[in-house]
């Protein structure tokens, strides 16, 4: 074996602009990737274990702490699963408040990712703060839009991170009709900002890279599914959420603290904005659908770098959802619904900003949790992220070291990975093996 002088080792200690920590390890021989591992070293926190023995009413507040970026998603999936056990349906204005709360989280989380985490990749900046030097107007507009999303979450939930107003059956306290109506001008202004953000992002250069994905999302009879729906995929899955385990299987790999998932007997799948847009574009709100027509790229979009554009469309959608609630909401008679506790197993699945978030709980007759299972979206995307990199890395390995590393990071950021959630992410090592003589 000869050590070639052309051997390169690319090594970055932590992947930045993702939520949480992990590493990517790539080993290449003659420009071909021979080994690739996404390592997750976000420490395990054992939520499923310490949920056992807790009261069912505590699950929304406890599971919110899995992720500071998308606590509403955890609260919504937990409430839905518990309400499934109790046979409780939350409808009318209480459901509308949940839609508005979730819309706020989508706006806040998506704008954070679009402007602060992902856009700097497309424009060649280390961070949004650096980008603000040349794109001050866009960064300021994005920060205002993100604030609007946070303010919506605060309005319904009490505060933006780990809202306090959510409970199984509804809310502790609900806004009055006139407080709700007062939101209209701000949301209309926000819609203008969101359209500007979409047009800005539409002008980015998307690396040429397409894959044959299996997209998975919730599908709802009338709405672009967020709060509930059936599990569907682009390769024929169409089941109730109760059948989650019959369709998907969890497995563990030695290099990671995160559990991985795959479609049984098929393999990797993608959840999140791109999957939702491809499967549910016919359910988008009017302006969001109109903007989609401006994109000169026919659906389905199979380029993961276009996920940033899917997020921008979803921000518009979320604002239109909030506007619809603002215009039709009437103060409900009671802030929550309550029924006697009963033993059973229940399922919850909602569309977190990053994709489907599945919860399953078993409680006893006193309401004490006996078993808990939580499957976050990033866990579901991990296998697909690795698959993308197997295909993408060879295209960039011959580029200058810094550029190759940056593009691999960007390929991971396409998924807006939230690693705190998945540990249950990223130092990059690219090692070029010497040519064998």
């Amino acid at each position, binding site marked *: 074996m000869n050590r070639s002088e052309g051997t390169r080792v690319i090594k970055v200690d932590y992947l930045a602009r993702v939520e949480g920590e992990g590493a990517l390890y790539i080993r290449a021989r003659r420009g071909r990737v021979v080994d690739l591992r996404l390592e997750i070293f976000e420490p395990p926190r054992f939520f499923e274990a310490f949920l056992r023995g807790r*009261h069912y009413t505590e699950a929304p507040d406890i599971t919110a702490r899995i992720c500071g970026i998308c606590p509403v998603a955890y609260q919504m999936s937990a409430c839905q699963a518990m309400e499934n056990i109790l046979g409780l349906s939350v409808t009318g204005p209480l459901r509308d408040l949940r839609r508005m709360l979730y819309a706020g989280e989508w706006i806040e989380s998506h704008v954070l990712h679009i402007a602060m985490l992902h856009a700097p990749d497309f424009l060649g900046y280390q961070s949004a703060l650096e980008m603000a030097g040349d794109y001050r107007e866009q960064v300021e507009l994005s920060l205002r839009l993100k604030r609007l999303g946070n303010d919506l979450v605060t309005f319904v939930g*009490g505060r933006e991170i780990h809202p306090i107003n959510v409970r199984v059956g509804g809310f502790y306290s609900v806004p009055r009709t006139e407080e709700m109506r007062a939101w209209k001008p701000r949301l209309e202004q926000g819609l203008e900002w969101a359209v500007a953000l979409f047009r800005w992002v539409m002008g980015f250069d998307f690396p040429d890279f397409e894959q044959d994905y299996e997209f998975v999302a919730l599908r709802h009879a009338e709405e672009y599914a967020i709060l509930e729906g059936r599990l569907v995929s682009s390769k024929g899955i169409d089941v109730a959420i109760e059948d989650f385990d019959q369709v998907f299987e969890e497995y563990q790999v030695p290099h990671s603290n995160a559990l991985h998932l795959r479609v049984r007997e098929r393999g990797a799948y993608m959840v999140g904005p791109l999957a939702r847009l491809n499967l549910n574009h016919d359910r988008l709100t009017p302006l969001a659908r109109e903007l989609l027509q401006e994109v000169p790229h026919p659906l389905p979009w199979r380029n993961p770098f276009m996920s940033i554009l899917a997020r921008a469309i979803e921000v518009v959608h979320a604002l239109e959802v909030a506007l619809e609630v603002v215009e039709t909401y009437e103060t409900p008679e009671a802030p929550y619904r309550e029924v006697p506790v009963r033993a059973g197993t229940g399922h919850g699945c909602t569309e977190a900003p990053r994709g489907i978030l599945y919860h399953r709980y078993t409680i006893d007759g006193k309401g004490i949790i006996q078993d808990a299972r939580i499957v976050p979206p990033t866990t579901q995307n991990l296998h697909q992220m690795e698959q993308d990199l197997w295909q993408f890395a060879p295209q960039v390995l011959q580029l200058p070291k810094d550029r190759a590393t940056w593009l691999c990071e960007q390929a991971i950021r396409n998924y807006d990975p939230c690693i705190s959630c998945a540990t249950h992410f990223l130092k990059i090592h690219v090692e070029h093996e010497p040519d064998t003589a």
Partner: protein
Amino acid sequence: MAKGTRKPKLAVWKFTSCDGCQLTLLDLEEHLLAIADRVDIAYFLEASRATVRGPYDISLVEGSISTPHEEELIRKVRKQSRFLVAIGACATAGGIQALRNFAHVRDFIQLVYAHPEYIRTLAQVRPIADVVPVDFELRGCPISREQLLELLSAYLHGRRPRIPRHSVCMECKRRGTVCIMVARGVPCLGPVTQAGCNALCPSYARGCFGCFGPMDSANPLSLGRRLEDLGLSREDIVRVYRTFNAYASAFREGSETYEQVRGHTRH
């Protein structure tokens, strides 16, 4: 004010946590660009690829220490930081993951992972101050935006941050919220919990659940007796003290006392 000298270097570190407290820095939206003009955000991986080498003038540390690797890393961070601030319930009290301190971690690992041998973790989750000296703490699950802004502003002006140490009850009085425990019999941790949220939950008709941890000289057992009178079982009271600040000493005292006397009659 700085007289045209170099900007102080700020670093943000993450240990075992949910990212919510460091997100609070990005959630300072309308102040963020102004802050970036006044301090050099030298290390903040959630926001930037670019990193500047230490030492750092001020380090914000999120999360608790739960792995051997984290134990080594926090010592390095301490050496590189002039002023180290622990932010949030994980950093100041161990956070929700410190619930494992009341159980056996091997049991937890086996419940969650099919291959426990791949998982490296410490038996006890510890707050930052248990491992290295800490210069200041911001409580909360999550921290308050206003307190974070006050901390940064106080630092830039060279004064001590004004952070109240009294109870949530004082905040209810100040904002004119009628006591929900007295008036409506809703169980509330307000009397033993440190202020910082502006008594948010009671204003939403909900009892305080202790996000900011125990106040100075809290009396968890006295409140426990009141909670029993309101109909909470001993198991309920153990759970009430055992959430995001479970390992903070006064809350720990509360839960452990009620756990030990479980099944015995009250005197």
